[in-house]
């Protein structure tokens, strides 16, 4: 019963609302069917499926709110969960930041659900793994990969008349290919709503080629280099920048978006004027739910909207011509600042250019090509400085050609400095669940000057 239709979800939620004796009530119904397969050492190691539907109810009396959850849906259970949320609300301390639920909003239908993905079977997963393992084994390469897929829905109703529904599918694939002699490693990631776009054999070939080409890497001196970042690498740092764009922290003076002397950098140019980043739930390549909390899987961004649950998502600029267009305001902070709430985006889109990776390499005199970054952690939130390492395919470029693989580097760099040192933007690619957080993004290849590598790593 994990995927309920709009009508089925509405029927259950209506019953829940009628049981309420509190000042108000809000109920969310989330369901998810997921499956995965994991392999290592060219053999499947684990696989599984899960299924869960859960009802969450928040009741409130004044500014005292209580939440209870249940996964049974007969009338007695629905009433029980409402009563429990009311009891917990009566026991709770007053929350001065409590916001009453939203009234009815207007939502457009989203494009996040694809039937083919919803119909993935264990046999499909097994074949997808085999299509990745077999070509690896044939080339003296060892595959370790993970494919995970989900189909889910999310529905919301409250005592102020709001009802919202969305369903979504996703498939995420990563594989690390290591040469059997341990000297070369390649990696690839693919993330889609539509499984028809996924070809694990094609993706695995990219990673196998990288593994073979990255054998016997040479050490070059750490320092500042021109880099060409593949979208997975750049996307991680841009995703992390988004996490720091919370308006409340900026207003409170504890964010890289806080301005020296007071105020925030909203409306100020902080990066190169060719940088345009926006969110658009209707984008065909990276569709997102049309409302906050409507992810359809109960995950981080799908589920927890906090006091912003139910807000409609809109197309919105984040950085326009290098200028900060929006910071993210939850409903409480927006009410304090007398502005419109700005929900955290469901996708990230950075405008690219026409250059292919080959074009960008051809135009590079000396530089480093980076496949991906790894173990990215904050060093200084004031400057948004992060450290991390290159991994699974790092190459030296000289006079327009890839000259040889190089040993991995540790970097210490801020995405703000990186986007100020922009040289060229290339074509966009969809990237998924990297280290920059779990919303799908369209990120271009980008060439950056003076990227700071601070030490060498022997890791392959």
């Amino acid at each position, binding site marked *: 019963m994990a995927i309920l239709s709009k009508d089925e979800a509405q029927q259950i939620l209506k019953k829940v609302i009628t049981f309420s004796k509190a000042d108000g009530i809000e109920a969310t119904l989330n369901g998810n069917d*997921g499956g995965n397969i994991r392999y290592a050492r060219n053999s499947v190691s684990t696989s599984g499926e899960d299924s869960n539907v859960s009802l969450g109810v928040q009741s409130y009396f004044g500014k005292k709110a209580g939440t209870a959850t249940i996964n049974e849906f007969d009338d007695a259970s629905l009433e029980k969960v409402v009563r429990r949320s009311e009891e917990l609300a009566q026991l709770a301390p007053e929350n001065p930041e409590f916001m009453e639920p939203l009234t009815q909003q207007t939502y457009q239908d989203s494009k996040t659900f694809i039937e083919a993905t919803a119909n993935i079977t264990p046999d499909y997963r097994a074949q997808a793994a085999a299509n990745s393992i077999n070509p690896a084994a044939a080339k003296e390469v060892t595959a370790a990969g993970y494919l995970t897929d989900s189909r889910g829905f999310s529905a919301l109703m409250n005592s102020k008349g709001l009802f919202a529904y969305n369903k979504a599918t996703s498939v995420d694939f990563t594989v690390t290919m290591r040469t059997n002699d341990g000297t070369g490693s390649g990696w690839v990631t693919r993330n889609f709503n539509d499984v028809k776009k996924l070809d694990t054999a094609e993706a695995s070939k990219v990673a196998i080629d990288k593994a073979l080409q990255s054998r016997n890497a040479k050490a070059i001196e750490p320092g500042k280099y021109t880099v060409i970042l593949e979208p997975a690498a750049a996307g991680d740092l841009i995703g992390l920048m988004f996490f720091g764009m919370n308006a409340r922290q900026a207003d409170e003076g504890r964010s890289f978006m806080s301005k020296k002397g007071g105020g925030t950098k909203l409306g100020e140019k902080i990066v190169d004027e060719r940088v345009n980043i926006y969110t658009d739930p209707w984008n065909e390549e990276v569709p997102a739910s049309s409302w906050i909390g409507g992810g359809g899987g109960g995950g981080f961004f799908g589920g927890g909207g906090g006091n912003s649950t139910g807000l409609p998502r809109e197309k919105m600029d984040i950085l326009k011509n290098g200028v900060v267009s929006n910071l993210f305001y939850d409903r409480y902070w927006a009410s304090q600042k007398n502005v419109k709430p700005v929900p955290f985006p469901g996708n990230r889109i950075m405008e690219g250019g026409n250059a292919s990776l080959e074009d960008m390499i051809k135009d590079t005199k000396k530089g480093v090509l980076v496949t991906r970054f790894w*173990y990215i952690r904050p060093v200084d939130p004031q400057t948004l400085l992060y450290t991390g390492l290159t991994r699974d395919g790092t190459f030296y470029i000289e006079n327009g050609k890839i000259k040889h693989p190089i040993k991995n580097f540790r970097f210490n760099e801020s995405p703000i400095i990186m986007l100020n040192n922009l040289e060229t933007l290339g074509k966009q690619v969809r990237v998924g669940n990297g280290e920059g957080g779990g919303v799908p993004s369209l990120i271009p290849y980008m060439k950056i000057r003076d990227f700071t590598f601070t030490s060498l790593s022997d890791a392959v």
Partner: protein
Amino acid sequence: MKRRDFIQLTGMSAGAMMLPISSFANSVDPARFLDPLLDVQQKKALADAALNTAKSLGATYTDVRIGRYLNQFVTTREKKVQNIINTESFGVGIRVIVNGTWGFAASNNVTADGMKKTTERAVAIAKANSKFQKEPVKLATTPSYGEVSWKTPIVKNGFEVPVKEKVDLLLNANAKALEKGANFVNSIIFLVNEQKYFASSEGSYIDQDVHRTWPNFSVNAIDRASGQFKSRPAFSAPVGMGYEYLDGKAEDKIQGPGGVIMYNKSYDIVEDATMAAEQVKQMIAAKSVEPGKYDLVLEPSHLWLTIHESVGHPTELDRVLGYEANFAGTSFLTLDKWQSKKFNFGSKQVNIVADKTQVGSLGAVGYDDEGVQCKKWDLIKDGVLVNYQAIRDQVNIIGQKESHGCCYSQSWSDVQFQRMANVSLQPGKEQLTPEQMIAGVEKGIYIVKDGSFSIDQQRYNFQFGGVLFFEIKNGKIEGMLKDVAYQANTQDFWNSCVQVCDERDYRMNGAFNDGKGQPPQSNAVSHGSATARFNGVNVINTGRTI
């Protein structure tokens, strides 16, 4: 096999703080925490139903984990309670071997019928996966323990302490920090209780009651004029103890170098928050470090994380073998290095043990999640790599007959696999205090508490920050530094260890939520050490302008 959901609390640290809550966890009335639900005999009858079903379907091995996982999170900021979350998750995970292949299934339907159906699913998955199996599973033998039990030796069950008492304690700590001039304070108490029942087809029936507690805060200071801000986390440790950890006994307070108060077996959150407000202002005013080579004196509240990342992870056998290659990575401690019996991991001062029995540690249990009695064993002896951390289906690969007992699952709904034991640096044999150690350093930095951290996928190259950095000049602490991070190669770093203070200075800290696996699972693990000195480590300056 569940992904995890998170509740985001903005403002807790640099960015945001995530509370890990299982997708299957239901919010409950805290009064429910004290209901036992099922007694041991009821659990045994249910487990036997699964064991019998599996046997009749051709399983050659089966284990059943009936688990009840309770969590409480009390969060506050400044003068406000932000949230009180009480969750319960209850269900069963069943693992079988059929045709030499693992199969696993889980359900929250813990009835005789539910056990049967879940077992059937586990068997079906094992049969489907056996098509791809290249090497049949070989389990190291383990004794049949019969009906046994184990409990974390707590004095005060945190779940019995009224929520109001916890809220009052946190708000009191917040108030003290604000009085002393902090701009913002977030504070939290996490409580975990794992009630785990394990039964196997080999005749072990193990009932365990595991408690963990973690008070924490973030005290912030902001200097609007210069645009600087800093946060100082609590000097508490997450512990395998009850609420008695918050008693803050005088005998557990340690007056350290630089005027810093550290805590051992109990913690005074109000005193620490007061001290944090003073220190966080000094952190802003501190001198920016001159990059270069320094002798580092690393306090246990800092060194635990370096041990965790650079010793704990690379000695995990599943990483060495490549099972984690696509996510957490592999390890530079390859089998040939261990086989040589002379791989120089560190200096002679470096003795590192794995221990699942250490009292008060996060990893302490009587038996692991595949029914192996826990123990202590050497990983690094006099600087040489002597062993790994391995579980029943992998330990045969290193020619050993006995599992190390470090198999763990975060929940009934996830399959158990190799997880890190408590991995700790043993104290030095010579009498030595941190003050005496510092007195011998000409140009150095004394680092207190863990901060920023990053390490490569084979655990060679790392970078660590910290919270308090004190400059040492000619044997004396001169004042506070900022913008400090050190970078090193693991083997070089541990070979630069020249001194470890004695057992009087030995303390544990740890990770409440260490991630590994796909889908990711969380593990809690402690790391002990005394203050240790590392010579000639490369320090960089992390200050930037944007």
